[in-house]
């Protein structure tokens, strides 16, 4: 097995300093929709200028480089122990090179480890064995501001009149967007998991955020829900940064899961406009970044 530490370092650099093309395009479209001279358009202008500057100087788009979330899909025979070691070495090196801010704080002592290496969940690394001979690694950097406005609902929810069906899901997701206001750095992207237990539901909601903004859910019921939620979330008028405006979310991604008969969880992961995700594909000696 190759030592992929340098390849992981490049993956982290790209994720932190360069926004995926679909997200940047969505931000440009959002800018066109806002009233000229409004605070909302001013915010989007600053955002777009910042994205260009970060790419040019190879500096973080946002200073909160978040929790590094790695999704490693490996062929049979790869050592996940070695991959973990290489990822952790790359994370520490990326921190030394200021692609990442030191973010791992011991919750009991309050001490920052200084190199982004914390317990086994920091950085978070998910491993899954797949068919074929390519190693595929997705990386998402999820900052604290947007993580803090995530929400989990247990249906039925009497306050919102939300029952155990997709109409109930619609209601609680809109409530989550309203509660978030601009605090998650709107316009954000919503990852929604329907079902699961509390833990798997939140994991599922984050995983949906790996989908490109312009794809369509393969389940027509969920595709319809995503379109409706996208339109209605924007009708709330919270707008970029919560300044008021036309675009409150850039996209909505949902996923159905299995649940216990007694439970009906809906988990909402809010991703800020700086939706930093990158994919690395390793095929023999070839390494490709998407």
């Amino acid at each position, binding site marked *: 097995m190759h030592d992929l530490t340098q390849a992981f370092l490049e993956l982290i650099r790209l994720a932190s300093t360069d926004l995926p093309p679909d997200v940047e395009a969505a931000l440009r479209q959002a800018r066109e929709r806002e009233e000229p001279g409004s605070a909302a358009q001013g915010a989007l202008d600053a955002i777009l200028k910042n994205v260009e500057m970060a790419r040019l100087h190879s500096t973080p788009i946002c*200073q909160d480089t978040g929790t590094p979330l790695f999704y490693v899909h490996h062929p049979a025979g790869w050592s996940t122990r070695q991959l973990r070691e290489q990822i952790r070495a790359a994370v520490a090196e990326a921190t030394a090179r200021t692609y990442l*801010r030191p973010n791992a704080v011991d919750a009991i002592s309050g*001490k920052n480890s200084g190199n982004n290496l914390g317990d086994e969940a920091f950085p978070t690394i998910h491993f899954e064995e797949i068919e074929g001979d390519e190693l595929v690694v997705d990386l998402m950097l999820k900052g604290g501001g947007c993580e803090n406005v995530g929400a989990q609902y247990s249906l039925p929810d009497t306050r919102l009149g939300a029952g155990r069906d997709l109409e109930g899901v619609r209601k609680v997701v809109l409530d989550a967007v309203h509660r978030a*206001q601009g605090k998650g750095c709107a316009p954000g992207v919503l990852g929604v998991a329907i079902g699961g237990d509390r833990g798997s539901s939140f994991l599922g909601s984050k995983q949906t955020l790996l989908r490109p903004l312009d794809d369509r859910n393969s389940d027509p019921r969920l595709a319809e829900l995503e379109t409706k939620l996208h339109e209605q979330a924007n009708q709330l008028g919270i707008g970029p940064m919560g300044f008021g405006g036309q675009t409150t979310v850039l996209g909505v991604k949902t996923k159905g899961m299995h649940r216990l008969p007694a439970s009906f969880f809906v988990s909402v992961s809010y991703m800020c406009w700086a939706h930093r995700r990158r994919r690395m594909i390793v095929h023999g000696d070839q390494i490709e970044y998407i």
Partner: protein
Amino acid sequence: MRSLNLPLDDETVRSLRIGDPVQLSGVMTTGRDAVHKWMIDTFIRKTRQPQGDDEQVYEAIRPILDGGAIYHCGPVVAGLDTGDYRFVAAGPTTSIREEPYQGEVMAHFNLKAVIGKGGMGPKTLAACQDVPAVYLHAIGGAASLIAQSVQRVVVVHKLEFGVPEAIWVIEVKDFPAVVTMDSHGGSIHAEVESHSAQKLESLLAA
């Protein structure tokens, strides 16, 4: 676009209204969760005895905060190994976490501007009227852009809180922000919250 120089006087503060874009220049400090808790516990509510260099740091930052600005920011900083610090990325962090502390901190230090993102609540808005002061909203996530306005790091205090939580004294030039809470009781955040709540109600009833 209004250009403002720190420190700010009351007349300038009172002339600012919600929606005004501003550019801020001068010396200010960062301070977020750990710093606000430290200020409140050690020097304002005094539930904790000063320790180590607490009193020296307090005396060093007091003149900067008097009439000055505090920035809710946990930066990415280069030069940690050499001490030749440089801000690489320095956007605002979410301010609402300081809501339990902010008003008291503003009154204690005579802070004229609080800079952050996401807005703050009724206690801080009341302090904006009393002190008087303004809340300035920087663009969340625009970290590389904002770092360009940081001319130099003057000094850092409390680095043991960690890089994001330390007190970074910085000199800024034309730091971009928007007034979203003013000294007349105006708050864009309260307005947007209220309008969106009405809209939510109609969407839930649909």
